[in-house]
């Protein structure tokens, strides 16, 4: 494959590209779903092909092919250069791609490689988790467990001399428990996963996840719908993570800056939050779902401190954004597959822990909501706005945890919200997820400690 990659790059350079790269990928995927002990869905996939990019005169063009012969690569590479040249006539501010080159061969460490575990064993784990859910309580009416795996061999090579080979292994387990009591029904779920082998999603962590989902579904039967309005809130580590990811992380992706659309455009190196607030994106942490040593352009990734003690400190770059903004590439370009262009994305994003114990924070808040779990959410960097739904939560009255609630969401603006963070917990937890942006979904992790925010707009009844 390395010879084919070199052929592609030479083809594009000869055709007139100033810079060229290629990603040759082979990904095997599997998804198994069990509902109430029955195997309901079994799917597998083979994605194989190459994405070729040509850059000239400040214009990028991407083509893809699943024909991994010299003929297929020649056609695809020539087409990429033709389109880039065509588009370059519209470019008024050309720039050059500047980066170091990298040579490496890396892989996610696995104790029990996913390929070594039979489908039957994977199904057995799901069945066992389903049985545990249903045996947890007779109020659990439906137990659903989903296993997903993605095993990727990726070669990234470019005209600067980069040749990086990666083997990625990403298992994921989703456990859902549905409860029913008369006309009331609720759902609890828990997702576990990371990078590595079957050990990541089996054993005690899977059993704990099953128990968490069942407990939540059953407990929600006695919850009430949250009251809306402006309130003080404490976010749990899961919600804190999505807050860091959706409201700050996306705003720090540098393609928002080259587009000059982000609400933070004039806030670089300015103070936005309390001194204790530090938000990090670190794909170099091993074993997490958003872990990678080199990005999808072959740039070595590094720990990025997005907000450092309240100050907007660093952006997430692709080769393109770093070259335009005259910054050092920091290995944040990711693509869902060879079909897509690598763009700045987060890996493992979290708020660094502070110094407060949760009970101190609850006591300090006095009245408000403790909001927990992520039931969805999004952010719009251009508007500086975000919304998240909590899976559940609790009313806090006079510094004491009270009635369980559901149906709460929070809406806010990036800048306002940073200034509303008052205290930061000393605990921390990280959660695997999948992030969508520009039609592309990539695996990630987010998390952090509990946060106390004053005067947030809460959606409820």
């Amino acid at each position, binding site marked *: 494959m390395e010879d084919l990659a070199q052929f592609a790059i030479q083809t594009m350079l000869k055709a007139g590209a100033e810079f060229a790269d290629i990603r040759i990928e082979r990904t095997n995927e599997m998804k198994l779903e069990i509902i109430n002990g*029955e*195997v*309901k*869905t*079994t*799917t*597998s*996939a*083979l994605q*194989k*092909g190459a994405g070729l990019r040509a850059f000239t005169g400040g*214009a*990028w*063009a*991407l*083509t*893809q092919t*699943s024909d991994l012969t010299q003929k297929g690569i020649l056609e695809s590479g020539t*087409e*990429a250069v033709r*389109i*880039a040249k*065509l*588009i370059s006539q*519209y470019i*008024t501010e050309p720039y050059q791609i500047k980066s170091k080159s990298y040579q490496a061969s890396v892989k996610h460490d696995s104790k029990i490689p996913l390929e070594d575990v039979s*489908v039957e064993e994977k*199904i057995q784990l799901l069945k066992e988790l389903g049985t545990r859910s249903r045996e947890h309580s007779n109020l659990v*009416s*439906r137990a659903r467990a989903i296993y997903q795996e993605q095993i990727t061999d990726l070669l990234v090579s470019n005209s600067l001399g980069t040749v990086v080979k990666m083997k990625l292994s990403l298992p994921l387990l989703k456990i859902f428990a*549905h409860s*029913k009591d008369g006309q009331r*029904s609720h*759902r609890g779920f828990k997702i576990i996963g990371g990078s590595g082998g079957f050990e990541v999603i089996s054993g005690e962590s899977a059993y704990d996840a099953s128990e968490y989902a069942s407990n939540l579904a059953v407990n929600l039967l006695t919850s009430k719908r949250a009251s*809306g*309005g*402006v309130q003080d809130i404490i976010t749990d580590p899961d919600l804190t993570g999505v807050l860091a990811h959706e409201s700050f992380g996306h705003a720090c992706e540098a393609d928002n800056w*080259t*587009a000059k*659309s982000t*609400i933070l455009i004039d806030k670089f190196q300015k103070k936005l939050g309390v001194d204790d607030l530090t938000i990090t994106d670190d794909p170099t942490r091993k074993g997490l779902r958003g872990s990678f040593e080199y990005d999808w352009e072959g740039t070595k990734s590094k720990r990025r401190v997005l907000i450092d003690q309240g100050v907007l400190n660093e952006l997430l770059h692709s080769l*393109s954004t770093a070259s335009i903004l005259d910054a050092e590439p920091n290995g944040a370009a990711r693509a869902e597959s060879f*079909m897509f*262009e690598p763009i700045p994305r987060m890996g493992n994003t979290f708020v660094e822990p502070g110094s407060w114990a949760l009970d101190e924070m609850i006591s300090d808040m006095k009245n408000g909501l403790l909001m927990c779990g992520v039931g969805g959410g*999004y952010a719009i960097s*251009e*508007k500086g*706005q975000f*919304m998240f*739904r909590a899976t559940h939560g609790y009313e806090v009255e006079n510094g004491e945890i009270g009635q369980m609630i559901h*149906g709460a*969401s929070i*809406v*806010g*603006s990036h800048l306002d919200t940073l200034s509303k963070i008052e205290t930061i917990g000393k605990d921390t937890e990280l959660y695997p997820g999948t992030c969508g942006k520009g039609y592309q979904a990539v695996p990630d992790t987010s998390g952090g400690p509990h946060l106390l925010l004053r005067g*947030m*707009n*809460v*959606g409820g*009844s």
Partner: protein
Amino acid sequence: MKEILLRTGEEAIRRSMNLDISEIELYLESRKTLEINVEDGKIRSVSLSKDRGCGIRSIVDKRVGFSYVTTLEQDDIDKTIQSSISLARVSTPDSDFQSLPISGMKYTQVKGIFDSLIENLSSDDAAELILRGVQANRESLSGMDPKIIGILQVSNTTRAIVNSHGISEAMCLTQIMLAFDSTIRVNGTQANSYGDLYSCKLKELNPESIGMNVGIKTKSMLGVKKIEDGEMSLVLSPVTTAHLLKSGLAEAIKASNVQNEQSFLKDSLKTDIASDILTITDDGLLDGGISSRSFDAEGVPSKTNLLLQNGSLENFLHNSYTSNKANVENTGNAGRQSYKDLPLISSSNLVVLPGKESQEDLVAEVQRGILCNISGDRPDLLSGDLNAVVMEGYYIRDGGIVHPLANTIFSINFVELLKGITRIGGDSVKTEYGVNPSIVVEKVKVSSG
């Protein structure tokens, strides 16, 4: 391409006849997509993708397995068939699974879903289209230095479905989508708006109109303010109506969600779930509809299905599995985004029977309320509870727009929203979800913080 896909599928079916399987289905697709991205008002990148692949469903004694591959090579397809059979063998037999669709059904050709002008649009002409829109946006925000993001997607798709019961159908579709997002900053405050247009016909695309409208809306978003919380009228724009019906109603009436007791409308068939002025069809045969198709994702002919008649829920949406299970007629709503997906259930074009009034007429009758131009939220499927962020909207007082809104949510149960509809506009707009007008809902809780 139709012939190539059909031949590839039929030959694969023939090769599979000696395998130990009950039934088999191949969904083959070839999609060419040109995408141009604009950043800061300038073309930044172009992508030309040629995505070809095949999704295969094998059934072994009522056990289903599914695999896909991103090529159409015979060797890859044969390996994928073997994969799907292996997975079927480890599945649990499903007594509710009766059969894949059987040939002999009558198909209606849908008009207006293929345009040779889109099929043959060059990269150069496409670049000119998006730049015309950029220019119009810039002119509508003259002197304000707008930061413009744009995307143009042009796709040409051929898909075929072939199964072991004789289904062998193919169709070609073209689609063009142009979207702009512009941002301005005035005296330290930022305003932003978004707009798009989907069409199957090139002639329906007016880049200047889209660019200018987004510019006008962007300017109107300057000076956002919060409002006092309370219960008030809600005017939903056609785009928001479309989004909420797709994510709320269409999700809740998918027969799979109903049969799994995962829908807040599971017990609501033939009951009043909405205001008696609301009538909605799901029209897979709509001339020029963005989601029109002559057959669904299992090869079943598309239909025009009545969903709500004067507020009464008349039908759930079915594919072959759920219709066989419920022993009712298949509504032809099997859906999948591509060959990479198992056929689930999806609405096609949701069409609301329009009223006569313009959006301005509707607003003029509101004493206190909000106009929601864009919201991206959906109700909880189990309860129907909805907390929706007004991503772009305005405060209405005494029949007039007062100011744009900041950080505002409206909260209501989705059934209460449907029942609370008091007026329906005549300003229907075609979107990727259907054809929908503005609507007015009373007594909605709004909070702003």
